[in-house]
């Protein structure tokens, strides 16, 4: 475990140094991301000022859903940025070099270059979640449930990314698949209660955006049933298991073409 942490640290450091080579571009990109976050925040505040509630949630609750979405989104992008750079490896056959090294190929493909730009936004986001969460007066159990369901959400996000990598090996298609994933998770920017059936059901169980994002926030507000919690943990474990199986299957289809 410590060996892998050391490797991850080295690869992240390299990614950071390579980012520093273009400081201006990185700064503009970071500013743009913060601006987008700010625009959405302002939108929610003014929207809720005009309507008072959204699908039965008040301003603080709606903001809490939005911040939880951002936390899961930013953490997964910070950890799994390498997925966005995976396609050239497979197309050029350079993935051979990953497979022959004494490091787990999935670990290298998934976490081979953390995104420091996303990392910088995590601490302020956690602070905002802490203060806003406190204003919702949760009990200790609700806070613990929130944290566990948040981890469960990250597990589901990991499963999605592994599935995207696997599909990339089989079809050479990564960019569009990851964009579809981003589009789907963006639907969790607001509580999934705003959607009508059958979309709401699809987003809860088939593409578990609701379980990833909405459910943790609902747990902090004391709005989930014990059955819902069990189902979400089971779904987290099953999705990770299936994604790993799919990865192992995809490796058998890698043809090493162009190498």
């Amino acid at each position, binding site marked *: 475990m410590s060996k892998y942490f050391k490797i991850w640290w080295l690869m992240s450091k390299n990614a950071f140094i390579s980012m520093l080579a273009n400081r*201006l571009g*990185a700064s*503009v990109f970071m*500013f*743009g991301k913060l601006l*987008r976050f700010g625009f959405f925040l302002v*939108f929610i505040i*003014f929207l809720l000022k005009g*309507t008072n509630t959204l699908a039965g949630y008040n301003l603080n609750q709606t903001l809490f859903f939005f911040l939880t979405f951002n936390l899961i989104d930013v953490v997964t992008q910070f950890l799994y940025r390498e997925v966005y750079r995976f396609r050239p490896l497979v197309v050029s056959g350079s993935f051979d070099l990953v497979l022959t090294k004494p490091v787990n190929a999935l670990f290298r493909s998934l976490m081979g270059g953390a995104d420091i730009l996303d990392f910088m936004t995590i601490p302020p986001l956690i602070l905002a979640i802490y203060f806003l969460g406190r204003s919702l007066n949760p009990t200790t159990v609700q806070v613990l449930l929130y944290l566990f369901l948040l981890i469960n959400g990250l597990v589901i996000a990991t499963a999605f990314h592994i599935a995207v990598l696997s599909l990339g090996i089989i079809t050479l298609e990564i960019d569009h698949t990851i964009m579809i994933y981003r589009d789907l998770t*963006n639907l969790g920017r607001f509580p999934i209660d705003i959607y009508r059936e059958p979309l709401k059901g699809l987003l809860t169980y088939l593409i578990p955006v609701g379980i990833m994002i909405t459910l943790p926030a609902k747990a902090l507000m004391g709005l989930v049933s014990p059955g819902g919690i069990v189902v979400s943990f089971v779904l987290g474990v099953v999705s990770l298991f299936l994604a790993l199986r799919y990865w192992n299957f995809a490796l058998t289809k890698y043809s090493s073409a162009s190498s």
Partner: protein
Amino acid sequence: MQIFLVFFLWSSVFSDPTRVVFGYNKEKILTYVFGILILKAIVLSARTVDVAGEISRGDLTNFLLKPVSYFKYWFSRDISSKALNLGFAAIETLILFIILKPPFFIQTDPSALLAFATSLVIAVVLFFALLFLVNIVAFWMPENGWAAQFLFVVIITEFLSGGVFPLDIFPAAFQKVLYFLPFPYLLFFPLQVYLGKIAGTQAWGGIMISAFWALVLLLCLNLVWNKGIRRYAAEGR
């Protein structure tokens, strides 16, 4: 997928069909949502995004040697891209319309339709000038053309043109400031004219401001291009 988010978000806000928020009823806000889908295809789809790459790779040289106007070349490519995207957007809208069955506001007033069409034509020219200006930053910063595009096109234009949410949710003072900028005239203003929320002299006044911005940006483009082309060293060629 984003259309679902926006559609259901506003459907949720207007769950009571008689409700009026920010001057919109359910019919008008959902027309706004679908209108944005179409207008984005007409105004914001453009191939001019590739100009920065051509400059930084040195490919611009190929065009400078040809007896064609570089601006007109890209404008014609933009128009063809818009035609293609409009076709896809029309099919997408039709499918979504069949699935979601939203109430839709049809504008029948010929003067409003004329003002809408005029504002739309100006919006196309305005975006072309704006996008081109952002792209030729690559003359000075060849490595950062993408960053300038991300900031100005993906973030600022998208939000301040009303592409994500209608700008009238903002306080009146902020809206007044926004109307002095070119961004609202890309999507928000034409749609407000279509919906009849801005009409008569107010509409034509807005059209004059957007035409003024288009003219100013085209002049700026010419000026910046002339300065940039002197710096151009065709690196990589």
